[in-house]
């Protein structure tokens, strides 16, 4: 059901409060960091800055003294490196990628870093303080638990809205018989239409990878950016055809609630489709996700995984991270080498 979400957004002008509040929020926010220094100091030692093509792209959480670092997979691209708090920088290689949680393990050639210890989050109630550890002494952000750790259902659980990726401009329905995604609607002049695809074509492979379910097409396309070319294998009537599609940018008319969600802060590209999250009101930039989030006791309850909206940042909790970490370290999720044409 598509709901109209109510909040009458106003122009800044009509809010017309005095341009300075009687309190100085900026000064106070700086003051607030002081008592949090001791809260994050231990976790800071397990936090590194992750850079891609010489720009800050994420934070990383050290999980082993052998140079293994956990970070947000969808932010990684190009040449990856880790910068430590002392300013030294190390080249990094991708060790594992876990799509569902958007976690990646990267490895640097350095031993002796302090790993983080993950503490259960489920019992932490709404209202408790949370702080984001970072590469410097102050936390990157502080906030409260808005909703305690929960499994995501419905729309939030769907892997959608990665608006930074390339689009086919089609609506599909999974076809069990033909084992592919059947195009039920082709947007005129869209990427798939321009490549010569038609309604009722069933997409069975994307760049050699078979499409096994309703989500599989979305997940396959998640890897690609706008303007990238992908090879599609398609069943049309009784024949098999190959198409090369140049993916399009996201130009969908954003619903009003989407627009409101983007007011005031930048959102992460991949911000849905997680199995379990703890929700906080702290404000983190997308490039500052992937680091440890701690309670007042200094316990690492999880890692920040997405700036999900105007009112929320999501944390992937320890309970979800631990089993995935074990599997990643066992080599179960090597990074896919995709042959792009």
């Amino acid at each position, binding site marked *: 059901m598509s709901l109209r979400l109510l909040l009458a957004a106003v122009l800044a002008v009509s809010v017309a409060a005095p341009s300075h509040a009687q309190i100085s929020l900026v000064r106070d926010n700086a*003051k607030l960091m002081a008592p*949090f220094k001791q809260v994050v100091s231990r976790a800071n030692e397990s936090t590194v800055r992750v850079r891609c093509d010489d720009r800050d792209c994420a934070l990383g959480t050290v999980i082993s003294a052998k140079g293994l670092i956990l970070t947000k997979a969808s932010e990684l691209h190009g040449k990856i490196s880790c910068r430590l708090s002392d300013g030294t920088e190390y080249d990094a290689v991708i060790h594992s990628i876990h799509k569902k949680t958007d976690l990646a393990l990267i490895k640097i050639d350095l031993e002796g870093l302090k790993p983080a210890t993950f503490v259960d989050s489920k019992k932490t109630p709404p209202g408790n303080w949370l702080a984001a550890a970072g590469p410097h002494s102050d936390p990157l952000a502080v906030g409260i638990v808005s909703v305690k750790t929960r499994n995501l259902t419905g729309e939030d659980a769907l892997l959608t809205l990665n608006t930074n990726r390339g689009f086919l401009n089609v609506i599909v329905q999974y076809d069990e018989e033909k084992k592919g995604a059947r195009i039920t609607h082709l947007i005129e002049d869209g990427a798939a239409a321009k490549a010569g695809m038609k309604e009722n074509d069933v997409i069975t492979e994307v760049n050699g990878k078979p499409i096994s379910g309703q989500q599989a097409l979305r997940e396959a396309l998640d890897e690609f950016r706008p303007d990238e070319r992908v090879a599609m294998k398609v069943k049309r009537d009784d024949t098999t055809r190959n198409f090369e599609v140049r993916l399009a940018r996201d130009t969908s008319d954003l619903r009003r609630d989407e627009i409101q969600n983007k007011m005031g802060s930048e959102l992460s590209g991949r911000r849905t489709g997680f199995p379990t999250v703890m*929700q906080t009101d702290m404000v983190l930039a997308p490039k500052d996700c992937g680091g440890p989030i701690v309670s007042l006791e200094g316990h690492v309850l999880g890692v920040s995984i997405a700036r999900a909206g105007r009112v929320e940042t999501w944390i992937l909790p320890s309970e979800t991270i631990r089993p995935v970490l074990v599997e990643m370290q066992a080599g179960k999720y090597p990074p896919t080498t995709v042959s792009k044409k």
Partner: protein
Amino acid sequence: MNVRGQARRLSLSLVYLLALVSLASAAESTWNTSRTTVPGSLEDLKALENRVRVTIEKSSPWTVGLLVRDGGKTAAGSGVIVNDDGLILTAGHVSAEPGKSCTIILSDGKRVKGKTLGRNDRIDSGMIQITDKGPNNGKWPHATIAKSSELKDGQYVITLGHPGGYRDDRPPVARLGRVLFQDKTRVRTSCTIVGGDSGGPLFDLDHKLVGIHSRIGWSLTENVHVPTDAFVSEWDKLAAGDVIDDPTARKPKLSKAILGVQFDEATKAPKIDSVTEEYPAEKAGMKAGDLIKKFDGKVVATADEVREIIARKKPGDTVDVEADRQGKTMKFKVTLIARVPEKP
């Protein structure tokens, strides 16, 4: 002093010391709910955390999601129960048309029915009545309203609501912020709100209701709520289903023709306070103090009635006017002229 006496004195001092220490920590661990400065120590952080947690615990059951039918679509917002009978405060743009049925989603996900009541369009206040019976012997758990004018800038407050609309398995979403500004019709805080939150509650750290979410601006600190005082002052009208300050209500249009009088504002009667030099009324001989009895052949009792007649006239039209001047009946023939459009 003998050993036993010394021992007793020592243990007594120890007791006093312990008592002092426990008093000190008891004092440190309570957050003053009207404090306007940020926490400065770990003790402060813990004290604030305790208060915030308790506030959220207590106020979540009073916070509801709302689904209101609006033509063919359904609009989603939030609200808060404020009395035993299940009266809900929400935003005017959520309750919208009075007398419509709507669905209320309780914090545990249970759905009950309700009916929309009145609203004030200018300040964005609205009311809804739950029509199902409450769970506690027919009574509803509800919030207590506090005087929003007692809020101080810098004071910590809590926002609850359903951003993005109600989600299964997601209780009301809590956010912590501070009061930034307030006046008679709005409170601005740093608690971020977004579509779906409209109508939801703003609580102080005594878990008392102080505001209702209304609208946002671009920045993360532009979150505007309707102060509870604004609801209280118009309570009966809202509860009766009135629409206050409806911008679409027919207001007399600015007339094209002008007479050139100012009416006495102290009375509804068409008593002239002053006449404008060189304008039709003055030129016809009308004066301050004249009480118009008949205008354009019609008996008039109020200034508004005179204005309504003028509104239907054109520049150049002639109007017969009868007025009372200190007991004497005066008659005038007035030719209306064009109103000079005001500079924008």
